[in-house]
């Protein structure tokens, strides 16, 4: 009897490290598995985007879908953010120096190499990334992806590659449009609330070739990351409606996170290799 009490009392501390190890081990295996699968999707996407065959007009169709879904959304959000940023900056500048002549030029420079590419990509990750995962996830749970494979079609080639090319192209285009909208809205805000003349505000003097290269590189990299991450989330959908929901959730969060981490890396690279050399 006393023996029994001892064993049952002594069991939890014995079991505890074991379960923790088990869980950590399982999670590590899961992560390695997921990473390998992700790399497979990435490799396949790049390979099929270059050499694969696609149904005629599918890339254009997808580009239209991406543009149609996100043009208005991106314009409204980036327009608002442009105005808010100008407002906050001018508030501070007025408090400290009161010299508003340089604000426009610095604002536009910051928009080109930093804010517009990353915020546009965040919005596209939300709109398009979730859409890709929801579409492909629904096709997974209704066995349409299996049906494609039974017809001798590689899902990455047929579903992801066209979305990859389309999202990449459209992200660059939308970033340029968003830049125009954000700068325009910001200049209106500066003019309306602080009386800064648009002719003074809209100055591209401070924008260097380095800023342009940084901005475009960011748009391209984000535009490539979003469809691959979301497509991967869609293709790993399991289970019924819960599965589709969680695939869509994972796509939003993972592609947004990818944008933030890549933004950090690219900004650091730009600082070391371009900006600190005065480019």
């Amino acid at each position: 009897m006393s023996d029994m009490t001892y064993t049952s009392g002594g069991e939890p501390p014995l079991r505890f490290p074991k379960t923790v190890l088990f869980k950590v081990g399982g999670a590590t295996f899961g992560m390695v598995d997921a990473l390998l699968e992700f790399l497979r999707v990435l490799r396949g996407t790049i390979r099929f985007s270059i050499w694969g065959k696609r149904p005629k007009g599918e890339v254009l169709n997808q580009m239209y879908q991406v543009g149609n879904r996100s043009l208005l959304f991106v314009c409204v959000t980036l327009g608002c953010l442009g105005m808010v940023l100008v407002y906050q900056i001018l508030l501070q500048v007025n408090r400290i120096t009161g010299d508003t002549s340089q604000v426009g030029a610095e604002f536009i420079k910051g928009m080109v190499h930093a804010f517009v590419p990353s915020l546009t990509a965040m919005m596209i990750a939300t709109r398009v990334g979730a859409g890709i995962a929801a579409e492909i996830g629904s096709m997974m749970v209704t066995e349409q992806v299996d049906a494609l494979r039974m017809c001798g079609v590689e899902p990455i080639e047929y579903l992801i590659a066209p979305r990859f090319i389309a999202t990449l192209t459209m992200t660059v285009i939308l970033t340029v449009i968003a830049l125009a909208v954000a700068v325009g809205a910001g200049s209106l805000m500066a003019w309306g609330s602080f009386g800064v003349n648009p002719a003074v505000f809209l100055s591209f003097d401070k924008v260097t070739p380095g800023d342009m290269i940084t901005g475009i590189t960011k748009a391209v990299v984000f535009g490539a990351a979003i469809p691959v991450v979301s497509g991967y989330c869609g293709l790993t959908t399991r289970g019924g409606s819960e599965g589709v929901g969680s695939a869509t959730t994972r796509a939003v969060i993972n592609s947004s996170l990818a944008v933030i981490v890549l933004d950090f890396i690219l900004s650091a690279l730009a600082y070391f290799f371009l900006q600190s050399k005065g480019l």
Partner: protein
Amino acid sequence: MARPSRLLLDPLGAVGGAVMDIATHLGAVVTLLVRVLRSLVPPRFDLPELWRNLYKMGNQSVPIVMLTAFFVGGIMVVQSAVFMKRFQATSLLGWGAGYSVLREVGPILIGLMFSGRVGSNNTAELGTMVVTEQIDGLRALSIDPMRYLIVPRVLAMVIMLFLLTVLGDLVALFGAMLFGKLIIGLEFGVFYAGLVSSLGVSDLTHGLVKALVFGLIIALTSCHFGLNVKGGAVGVGRSVNSAVVGSALGIVLSDYFLTYVLT
């Protein structure tokens, strides 16, 4: 496969349709808000559900928010480093990073990530419950879905996003400080001095009020789209998509108005 563009064929109709669509959703969200408020005075909701949701949502979002905030702090420093260096004003870095993180970047990005993680998960959960007729099941057991499901979730999201923003602000400032040292060699002390000398409590509260409003917007939007799922698994995916887009739109638009109102 390409459908003809309505935006080109019938631009007025397309824009009008979009406006009507937004108005319908907005109306439904406001109605939902009224119903939530009505069950709050006097408080009639399931308290254990609130705790369970707080725990679950915190669990889901703390790691992702901390990671985001850490990198956002880094991004703020890297992107303003060249500017600060040019003006020989590296001592202003603490002020610049603090100002933008506390007022704008912190609440917005943490809000977007929270919407992506918790809001969309909430939509998916509620949507699945609708699709599998579990909500009708609750009603059949004469349990009010409002009190049992919706109100605890809305409250939990508002509280949780507020707490996460406090935590995220701290982590972002820590990240900025760390990367300021690593990348432009700015001493911690200088950063800290810049931070405390020119920032006031108002900068912190400015961001935290925003966090409260964002939390409410995310909560109501995600519940609304979750409860109105139609059409099985495909519908759940579509609703999650609409919910995150609606939340992002709500966050950015309300940020615009709040910035005015709060200064």
